[in-house]
């Protein structure tokens, strides 16, 4: 009741002030009841060194591209509260968004952003390309996807599935956009299960041509980015039938439009229509009506067809052939995982900056209202997500290095790690976006504040390039295969990070204390324990079902609960290990100190949130209580670093949003009159 009186008093004061202001006319906007105070800036560490550690590489190139976008009208600069913000106009129609996306690509092309994207060689060129794509994604997902389809999917298919004749003809042309490529793999009836696609290709030795055909409606190519409006060429994935025998899935180059944009004969294209997000990408559907293409258009790095129609491949087994064929496509999962982390960074930077300037309720009579981030509950909502985002950012950097340094020996690791991280990082992003949206209250609902819109723009990430659930099952499947093979050979584990299983099972102290839970030894032990135990349980359950006469596949399907827990255990541990490595590489003690707090938060909040630790007894209920209490302690320890931690994300102000800065000025009456 006293509280209610107090609120009334405050409201009355507001109204009185307002009345005074009104009498002086235009002064209303200049003397708000609440004035904006910028967040206090007291970094305990050097933000630019932390940024270097987080972004990891090509900082100069990144800043250059931010500059290019910030200085062009094409990127829709808008003045809010005295600052300029750039973000796409999502209020444009689908058609307008698609045209703007193409114009932005042309601008970036003219400024030399894509130089070396196809013709460059070596890991340095690849890292540069990845860095620039990350910056593009910070501006707009549609722009990044449209570029990603052209360079990484179409271009990647030419690079990896093609041979010299394709490289000579297409790499340079792709880099300079002499043509626009797309990638026709998914069909209406088949997505994750590429091997089941129904498009059929046959060979005509008389004319030395392949004939591509869409035999039924479920075989129409679906979701093909770029196909609806702009693409001139596509890589088509299709079953290859030679002399009546199905040789499995192969890829072919097919022209679908001429240079003037007219659809080619025997090709039919329809639009996928308006989507919940990503409307700057023209997803289309394609039907092939016995389209004839020259023999050299088969991408023949793995298999070929001779001019007289004989099937030729060095790899006899169709399964292996398929595996070898698809392996290079991990680039998609790498870029998706990393861009998900940047979106989590963006939403946290906005929500945390807002929570350091927005107040709500006083806790003492007549006292000032309290900053949102000074509420322990608000800290608990945002700071653990901040810690996870740090951890996943390091994991993303590790994944990129694994990808650009890939060797045939590392293909399996790359496949498993990229699958697990793609799922974990994109799920984390969606959860973070939702929490940040809510943490910004009503302001989170405004498109100009970005977070809400990002939910729609990035939702697709849990689906494309492999459904997250399917990917996680692949992780567990690969771990199981490794487990079975190693046990059968009776040899030590030496892959997929399972080496810790060669050692005796770690013991967790029966009574945890604050100092124990902060130690990296304990943190590593409990994550290893969880993975090892779940893998043993999973193997046992699958073999139990098999002993009951189930096939391997159905035994695996029936054990899905353990498979899920195991997939998560594997990725959490992988993420922790990359964090520890990044922490060790930090040069400066002040960086190490704050990183160790963040690492502890990452581990402890994982222990707090994943029921597996209690379910399987890695934590006793008493110890779970210790962990939970420590999460709250860590929230208040990280709180003073919150601003510096989000400033270290290296996302320029112009790419955040008005509520991250002076939201009073941005919403002033005078600002609404411009």
């Amino acid at each position, binding site marked *: 009741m006293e509280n209610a009186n107090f609120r009334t008093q405050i409201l009355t004061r507001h109204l009185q002030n307002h009345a005074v202001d009104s009498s002086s006319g235009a002064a209303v906007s200049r003397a708000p009841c609440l004035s904006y105070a910028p967040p206090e800036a007291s970094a305990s560490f050097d933000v630019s060194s932390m940024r270097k550690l987080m972004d990891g590489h090509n900082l100069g190139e990144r800043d250059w591209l931010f500059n290019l976008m910030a200085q062009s009208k094409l990127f829709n600069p808008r003045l809010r509260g*005295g600052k300029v913000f750039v973000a796409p106009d999502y209020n444009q129609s689908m058609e307008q968004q698609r045209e703007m996306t193409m114009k932005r690509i042309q601008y970036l092309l003219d*400024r*030399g952003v894509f130089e070396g994207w196809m013709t460059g060689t070596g890991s340095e060129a690849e890292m540069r390309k990845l860095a620039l794509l990350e910056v593009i994604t910070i501006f707009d997902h549609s722009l990044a996807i449209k570029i990603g389809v052209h360079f990484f999917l179409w271009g990647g298919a030419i690079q990896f599935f093609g041979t010299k004749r394709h490289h000579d003809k297409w790499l340079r042309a792709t880099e300079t956009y002499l043509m626009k490529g797309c990638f026709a793999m998914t069909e209406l009836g088949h997505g994750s299960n590429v091997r089941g696609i129904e498009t059929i290709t046959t060979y005509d030795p008389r004319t030395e041509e392949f004939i591509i055909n869409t035999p039924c409606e479920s075989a129409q190519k679906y979701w093909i980015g770029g196909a609806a409006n702009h693409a001139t060429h596509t890589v088509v994935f299709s079953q290859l039938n030679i002399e009546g025998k199905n040789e499995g899935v192969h890829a072919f180059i097919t022209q679908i439009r001429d240079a003037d944009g007219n659809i080619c004969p025997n090709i039919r294209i329809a639009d996928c229509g308006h989507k919940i997000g990503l409307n700057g990408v023209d997803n289309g559907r394609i039907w092939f009506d016995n389209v004839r293409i020259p023999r050299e258009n088969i991408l023949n790095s793995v298999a070929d067809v001779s001019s007289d129609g004989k099937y030729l491949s060095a790899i006899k087994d169709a399964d292996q052939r398929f595996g070898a064929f698809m392996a290079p496509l991990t680039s998609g999962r790498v870029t998706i995982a990393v861009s998900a982390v940047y979106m989590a960074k963006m939403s946290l930077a906005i929500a945390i900056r807002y929570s350091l300037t927005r107040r709500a309720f006083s806790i003492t009579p007549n006292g000032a209202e309290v900053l949102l981030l000074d509420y322990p509950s608000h800290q608990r909502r945002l700071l653990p997500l901040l810690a996870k985002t740090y951890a996943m950012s390091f994991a993303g950097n590790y994944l990129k290095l694994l990808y650009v340094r890939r060797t045939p020996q590392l293909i399996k690791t790359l496949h498993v790690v990229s699958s697990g991280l793609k799922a974990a990082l994109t799920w984390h992003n969606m959860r973070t976006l939702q929490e940040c949206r809510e943490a910004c209250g009503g302001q989170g609902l405004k498109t100009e504040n970005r977070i809400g819109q990002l939910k729609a723009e990035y939702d697709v990430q849990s689906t494309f390039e492999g459904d997250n659930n399917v990917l996680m099952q692949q992780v567990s499947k690969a771990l199981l295969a490794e487990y079975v093979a190693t046990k059968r050979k009776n040899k030590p584990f030496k892959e997929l990070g399972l080496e810790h299983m060669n050692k005796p099972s770690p013991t967790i102290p029966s009574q945890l204390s604050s100092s124990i839970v902060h130690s990296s030894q304990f943190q590593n032990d409990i994550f290893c324990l969880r993975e090892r135990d779940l893998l043993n349980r999973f193997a046992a359950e699958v073999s139990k079902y098999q002993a009951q006469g189930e096939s391997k596949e159905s035994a695996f399907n029936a054990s899905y609960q353990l498979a899920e827990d195991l997939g998560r255990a594997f990725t959490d541990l992988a993420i922790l290990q990359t964090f520890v490595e990044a922490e060790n590489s930090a040069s400066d003690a002040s960086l190490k100190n704050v990183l160790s707090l963040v690492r502890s938060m990452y581990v402890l909040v994982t222990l707090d949130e994943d029921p597996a630790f209690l379910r399987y007894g890695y934590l006793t209920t008493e110890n779970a209580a210790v962990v939970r209490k420590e999460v709250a302690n860590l929230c208040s320890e990280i709180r003073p670093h919150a601003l510096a931690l989000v400033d270290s994300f290296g996302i320029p102000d112009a790419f955040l949003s008005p509520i991250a800065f002076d939201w009073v000025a941005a919403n002033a009456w005078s600002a609404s009159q411009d």
Partner: protein
Amino acid sequence: MASTNGETDQVLVEERSCGRIFILNRPKQLNALSAVMVSRLLELFLSCAEDSSVKFIIVKGKGRAFCAGGDVAAVVYDINRGNWKSGAEYFRKEFTLNYVIATYIKPQVSILNGIVMGGGAGVSVHGRFRIATEKSLFAMPETALGLFPDIGASYFLSRLPGFFGEYVGLTGARLDGAEMLACGLATHFVQSESLPLLEEALVKAATSDPMVISSVIEGFSNAPNLKKNSAYHRLDVINKCFSRRTVEDIIQALERVSADKKDDWISSTIQSLKKASPMSLKISLRSIREGRLQGIGKCLVREFRMVCHVMLGEVSKDFVEGCRAILVDKDRNPKWAPSKLESISDKMVDRYFSKVDDADWEDLKLPVNFRLPAYAIAKL
């Protein structure tokens, strides 16, 4: 009613009812900012901020210059005697002054009726109103001196339209009043003959309301025409070339344009880039690019690190050499080292942006002010 006591004569102060007029008063040196002037100005700005009787501030120069820059000759004299730290103190104070001006709560009207270069821009462009005249001459000539555009220039140059800031900052191009207005370095253009009346009108208005001050100035303003061969007409070429990633790429892009069609403006632009210190060009470009993404405070902190490294001369001694060639010996023939852009590695450039490895050295600490107007908050 000018105040006179000893060295404070270098800045004259006129008290005009609610206004204060600061007059830079070293006309023989084109009002170049001495250490005394910097200290005095800082003192004046801080005390006027507290003085509720002061509503606005006018800054102008005595003689034919507004201010030709910082007193770099004195700094180089100190460096040559092994005393870079007194130079560091000079810049620390100057950059603090730039910050105070950039975040000042009361309107500042700078009357740029003559030369405005380097440090002169630092005490005017950050303020709210900048009045250009037909006599204005603006330039950031630092790359020809072995320095880089400092005094917070990485903040305001980078915010000019397109990549005009890179052009102005790297080439040291001279702009007249009309060009200053067109690109936004000036907020108004007034014929110099109207200045006395304008001053009177401002004094009479006796207000701190920027809207009122703006409309007073507008009453005396006119719209000048850009000269036919103005660089501002070449914004498309500037955007195309100066948006390039590196200095080498910028020069190459300019050369490509000039190969297509002979063009005096492009040739002289290439010439000024080739005459400038290669190290200065490299660090200037990076500074402007970082500045575009940072607030005014971070820009000044970075520039302070840079200027200390420039004075220390661990990577290059071009600053001393540039001042020798341009200001002391006046042979206009500096011997830059490194002499070529290609021989400068990223690591060498990185050095300028790192903390200075010296026990007594500290990053620039800027004053914290909790009573900032929204337009100043937006610059942070």
